[in-house]
């Protein structure tokens, strides 16, 4: 029962993200745009390039959607509302989201096109930049929660949310989450201005619809993961828990979509240099600080 509720909420969340993204990029708030563009995509032809790696080309969008949906299964929206409360929940989110990279490599190598090829391998460089900045902050969160259970992580934040307990970890995780969902300013694989759509360019029709569905699900899943790890999940005064979860996820999604509009795309060289030379030392420092805090405050 809880599974169907959460999957329906996920579909509603994806629709909401689509409406928000259309509103932010075109400036017109219209509830029907995502539905219309979805049906239009279904109605258009879906072309397969002439000499593709057919398995990669077909599997990539499905794998992107799969990895986003599986990562959403361990997200608690309410004390009882979670699909599978895995004992290694935090690790499982990370494991599911790694297959976004595999999907993008397949989408890059599959169509045998120049832009897709560059886009695919650039995303591998992007993973090398952000992967450590996802793992280390989660480690700090787990240190405080003493367990990998996502429900336990939320419960451990009841007095003081993690965003205040370990702000450095929050900032690093937020940036790495935007890089994982290749949202601007980290849209290196699907850069419209540099690679004419890059990895997404060769998809059309229903395959493009699945690819975009996967990307939107990825955004809503990452937003809810940020809420679970750093913003105290369903906890909050006055309002019922499910309302708090919804508000926080919506707020994080809007921040993620807005933050990208206000700056140009980062270059891969700078992304790698900043993440490795500044990000990882800060992440290690964050672990060290949290280590001391956990021991000092009983």
């Amino acid at each position: 029962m809880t599974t169907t509720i959460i999957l329906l909420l996920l579909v509603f969340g994806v629709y909401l993200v689509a409406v928000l993204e259309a509103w932010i990029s075109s400036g017109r708030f219209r509830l029907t745009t995502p539905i219309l563009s979805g049906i239009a995509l279904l109605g258009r032809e879906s072309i397969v390039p002439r000499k593709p790696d057919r398995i990669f080309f077909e599997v990539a969008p499905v794998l992107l959607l799969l990895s986003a949906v599986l990562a959403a299964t361990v997200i608690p929206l309410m004390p009882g509302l979670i699909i599978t409360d895995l004992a290694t929940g935090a690790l499982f989110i990370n494991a599911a989201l790694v297959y976004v990279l595999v999907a993008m490599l397949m989408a890059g190598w599959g169509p045998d096109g120049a832009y897709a090829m560059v886009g695919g391998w650039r995303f591998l460089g992007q993973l090398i930049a952000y992967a450590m900045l996802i793992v280390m902050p989660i480690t700090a969160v787990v240190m405080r929660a003493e367990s990998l259970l996502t429900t336990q992580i939320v419960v451990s934040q009841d007095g003081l949310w993690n965003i205040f307990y370990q702000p450095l970890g929050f900032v690093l995780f937020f940036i790495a989450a935007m890089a994982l969902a290749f949202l601007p300013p980290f849209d290196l694989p699907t850069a419209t201005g540099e690679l004419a759509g890059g990895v997404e360019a060769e998809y059309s029709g229903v395959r493009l619809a699945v690819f975009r569905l996967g990307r939107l699900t990825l955004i809503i899943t990452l937003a809810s993961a940020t809420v679970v790890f750093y913003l105290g999940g369903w906890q909050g005064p006055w309002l019922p828990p499910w309302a708090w979860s919804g508000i926080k996820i919506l707020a994080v999604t809007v921040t993620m979509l807005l933050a990208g509009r206000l700056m140009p795309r980062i270059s891969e060289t700078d992304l790698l240099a900043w993440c490795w030379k500044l990000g990882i030392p800060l992440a290690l420092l964050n672990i060290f600080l949290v280590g001391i805090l956990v021991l000092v405050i009983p």
Partner: protein
Amino acid sequence: MISGARLGKLSGLRRLVATAISRDLTTFVIPGPDIARAHGLDLAAAGLQIVASPRHASVLLVVGDIPLALHDAATVIYAQMVRPRALFILGTEIFSSLPDADIMSRLSQDGLIDGVQQLRTAFAEGAFRLDVADFDAPALQIRIEYTCSMHPEIALNEPGSCPKCGMTLIIRETQASTGRAHTKQKNVDVSVDEQMATGNEHNAHHHMSDAAKVEFTCPMHPEVVQDAPGSCPRCGMNLEPRETKTEHTHDHSQMNHDAAVQYTCPMHPEVVQDGPGSCPRCGMNLEPREITESETNEHSGMDHDSTDHSDMDHGDMAFMSMIDVTKNLPRSTDGLPMEWTEAPFGPFFPGLPGGLMLTLTLDGDTVADSKTQPLFENKELLPQVSPDIVNFIQQITRFGPLSPVAFQLLACQALENAAGLEISANVASARIGALEQERIANHLGWLALFAQQTGFNWLQRRAASLQLKFCLADMQQIATLAADIQSLIKRLGKTPLLKSRTVGIGKLASDSNLRGPVARASGVANDVRSTDKNYIALGFEAVSQTQGDAYARLQVRLAEIIHSLKLIQVSGAIERPTPADTGEISATGEASVETPRGMAHLELTLQKGQVIAARLETPSTYHLDLIKPLTEQQALADALVAIGSLDLSPWEVQSREIQT
């Protein structure tokens, strides 16, 4: 009805899909969204959504007249669109290679809006049809040839295995219609790039002749010798290439003839010369390098392997080792011999000016080489320039669809110079107002294109809307828009990541043939306005920077926008230049005007009021061949930013002798 409909009866589900598509019109603009904005078209307001790839587009929007060189590219884009697709042409006649236009309308915003209405109804009713014809055109035909994936310069007409490395050849389709020998310069060692590849070319040529005398022998049965690759009659093993004895000795002696010491460039190890000197690619002086012992004996080593083949374990010598295969490949800056692929960033690339024919040779995501073609061939005469003055001026303005006022002013001033007329001060200052208004509109258009290329969504929408409002604004509206533009420029100063994407990229030393903002950003004070008395009267002073990189060019253009706003305030009136009536005179006149991209110069000779000869010099002609040095060994993102910062207009490239 639309020509690109899908096959199917317009039943319930398909009707819903047709109406959905008619409401979600994704558009690919030819020659480019920047040209559409320059013509004052606001596509978003009309309900069209611009997309980056023809795969995502339902409507092909053709704006203004398309030069002959772009007809093939437009056909290719139309062929690559997904059905249901429609062709929407604004303000030009259709050209042969595209199907007949579904909607045609005049080149203006209201022409666009009622064209979009017709498109919506056409899609709603005609997206699905029972009789659908396939689209085909000569530009799309293919010719099959066989090549080796490791040595793409091999191009045989029948299957077999590669003479160089024995791998089975793969099918490769090439353009049939162009007919020109489609020799792929995949790796530079074969390209006839004289100064760079002397060493390599000699090597490759030597290799090529070497291949002709290669024999094929079976590792198990050395007595089996064939000229063509194939499988051994005795044991069915596939045969390997082996150089015959005589060839080998000549080859060896030729190696000794080379001086024991070769000179190579630390940055470009593929540049190999016998004598000392400076590297043709980057000018650094070459360092001596003895031919390392391994290279010589490796060569002989390979020969040694191939001779006493039989006694060694036959399995592992079947394929050529990577060292042999990549011996002649050019090495990148980190010494790795990689294959370079040619990727077109051609006429309709979303991040670059529309119509810029560009092909980049990519080594991974680093640009190793770049090739551009001008839109108008020198010898191919432009649309017949008719002799009478009014048509002549009208056709001159077509050279610069992005800056028509500047070219019109250029023609008028040349005519007045020929007739020796003097124009009154307030007409001159009104003309200055019009020119500065267009300069601001052009710089805003460039900002929008730069933002589109670097993924800066807010700036792209803000600059595009300001540009559209600005080029139609009269004096009062300009006053109100000035405040918005000032706040935009202030906001740019505080944008994170903007500096790191532009500082140090596309650095240009100051040299004479730079023009316009690109020159002023490198410290070259080359500005026609500083010597024009009307401008000095309005209090003009030139703006310049010195670093000469993309950031400096951005700063110069922003400063010019602010300065031009002040000039318009001072001139007080805006009025498009109209040709004065010069009557039947025969004389020569010349003029130069500071167009938004730099100084354009026109000389024309009149005979009894008819223009018989004219020579036009445009700034982008000089900037086109700056692309190659700017993008050499740069990351793709930096290279595209550098090319974008030049603000090229492919329409005005190629200084032409216009013979009427």
